[in-house]
């Protein structure tokens, strides 16, 4: 069953134009209806919680689903447990695990055909629709002193920025967090894919604090299509 949802094989590194991993045609998502307790394994003790709403937009939290299990041996009710990717670090708190298990009760599932790949070596953002690359945009990525962390992440929020805000007009707040900046501009060092307005920089270079900047036309196109929960692979 993993073939549908685990089609992205993580690729380490990124100094060179990376081999783009194979992208699954769709990704299962779950929208939280309430605060979710997170366990390290199905039926295990709750070790973390995930808020039902996101901090910036107050929209419902949407998480990618990695796998599922019905484990009656640990849960006498035979509940369906979902392994999900978790939001990133919150300001002034410890770094949460990247994945965990939640129960599926009262949750809403959905699917998305979208997937973003950030190729740090090529300094481009690739947009996939149903497993097919449909757009490729030049980007500004993190410089060597404040690199953009690689790995598997997802869009936490789709934010419309004020016209004068750094990174306007739109920002996709990701679950990725800077490994260098644990606090930045009052935030937890959250890596976003956003516009270039009011920031500047040259597309195709590595000169950001870790965020990925795109031309206004590019981020506008993406923000009109890519919503919370959409997976992001940074290689």
């Amino acid at each position, binding site marked *: *069953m993993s073939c*549908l*949802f685990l089609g992205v094989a993580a690729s380490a590194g990124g100094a060179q134009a990376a081999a783009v991993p194979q992208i699954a045609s769709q990704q*299962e*998502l*779950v929208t939280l209806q309430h605060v979710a307790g997170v366990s390290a394994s199905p039926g295990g003790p709750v070790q973390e919680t995930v808020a039902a709403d996101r901090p*910036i*937009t*107050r929209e419902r939290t949407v998480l990618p689903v990695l796998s*599922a299990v*019905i484990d*009656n041996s640990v849960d*006498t*009710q*035979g*509940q*369906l447990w979902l392994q999900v990717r978790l939001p990133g670090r919150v300001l002034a708190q410890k770094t949460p695990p990247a994945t965990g298990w939640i129960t*599926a*009760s009262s949750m*809403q*599932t*959905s*699917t*998305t*055909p979208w997937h973003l790949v950030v190729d740090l070596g090529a300094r481009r953002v690739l947009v996939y629709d149903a497993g097919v690359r449909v757009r490729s945009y030049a980007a500004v990525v*993190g410089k060597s002193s404040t690199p953009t962390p690689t790995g598997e992440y997802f869009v936490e*929020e*789709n*934010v*419309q*920025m*004020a016209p004068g*805000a*750094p*990174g306007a007009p*739109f*920002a996709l*707040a990701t679950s990725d967090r*800077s490994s260098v*900046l644990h606090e*930045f*501009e*009052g*935030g937890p*060092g*959250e*890596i*976003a894919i*956003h516009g270039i307005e009011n*920031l500047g920089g040259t597309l195709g270079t590595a000169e*950001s*604090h*870790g965020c990925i900047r795109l031309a206004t036309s590019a981020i506008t196109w993406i*923000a*009109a*299509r*890519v*919503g*919370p*929960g959409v997976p992001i692979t940074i290689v």
Partner: protein
Amino acid sequence: MHPKKHPVGRTWKLRLLGLACLSALALLVSDALAAQPPVGLGTDGAFAVLAGQTVTNTGPSTINGNLGVSPGAAVTGFPPGTVNGTIHEADAVASQAQLDLTTAYNDAAGRTPFATVPADLTGLTLTPGVYKNASALALTGSLTLNAQGNPSAVFIFQAGSTLITGSGSSVNLINGAQPCNVFWQVGSSATLGTTTSFVGDILALSSVTLNNGVTLDGRALARNGSVTLINDTITAAQCATPVTTTGTGSGSGTGSGTTTGTGGGKGNGTALLHATPSSLTRPGSHACVSKAFKVTVSGKLIRRVVFSFAGHVVARRTDAPFTTSVDPGTGSHTLKAHVTFSGATPAKTLHIPVRSCNAADRSVKPIAGSGGFTG
């Protein structure tokens, strides 16, 4: 964003089954459709609950039918539980019921031919027959049993080991299917998750556990082990006698009417829900629809039908034909037809799960907010 939304369980059904499994089911299902007589329950027909060792109840469970234990003798939790029948603790009646249960269990286990089904039955719509998984059976959402208009249609499920349902799971009967004709032969133990709405007689080799708030329209029968209940309702399903009608359309009929209310009296009404294309209710196919589909309710003594889809009323009909066209939209939803009858027949709600082939609205709307990103 507006991704394709559907309740938890539907997608996992697809995941757990896999296309290969569905294809195999489609090929095999015809073999399972040989008409089956019901499993003979003998004296178990009067029992709603029967255990080999103990019956343990917590909370105000309601048992409509007899409760028995044999060869064990421990029955606890009544009250607060209520038994609308007789409790038989290690007496001759319970002993005979256990003997009859062994016969019924072996009968159900030996039925052939059978169709091999996936372990997770969620989302399937099955027609009468024998369905088996040599390993186990599970349900995390809805299973629909379609009698195709034959109230005597029999459904037999054979689980190699466990039968497990997730919280809120349900077994839905359409087109005349009756709870009294559904049988679950369980090779080890059955566990019904919280608030499961289940149908049929569970014949378990070991134990039967009903978690909080389960409704079982059938029987919980355990050969060697225990039956455990928590604030549940169990009604020993009795078959309704087929309805006969007069030429004037004023129906009459008789039914057992003992506990289930499915029986009748004068003025029994009937209702069947049909869909066009028929693939909507074809067993195993679970085909999606891309354009408007037609649904029709036919039957006797129908006074009014209210059609709803995705939780919204789409049509009200007080005269035949009781039909309407429905736009499937996007995602997965349930088409419901709430039918009220002339006379004393209780209203009923018929339903069909519908999965749209249409892509969801893929536009998303960014929400205003401040940044604080690393820039």
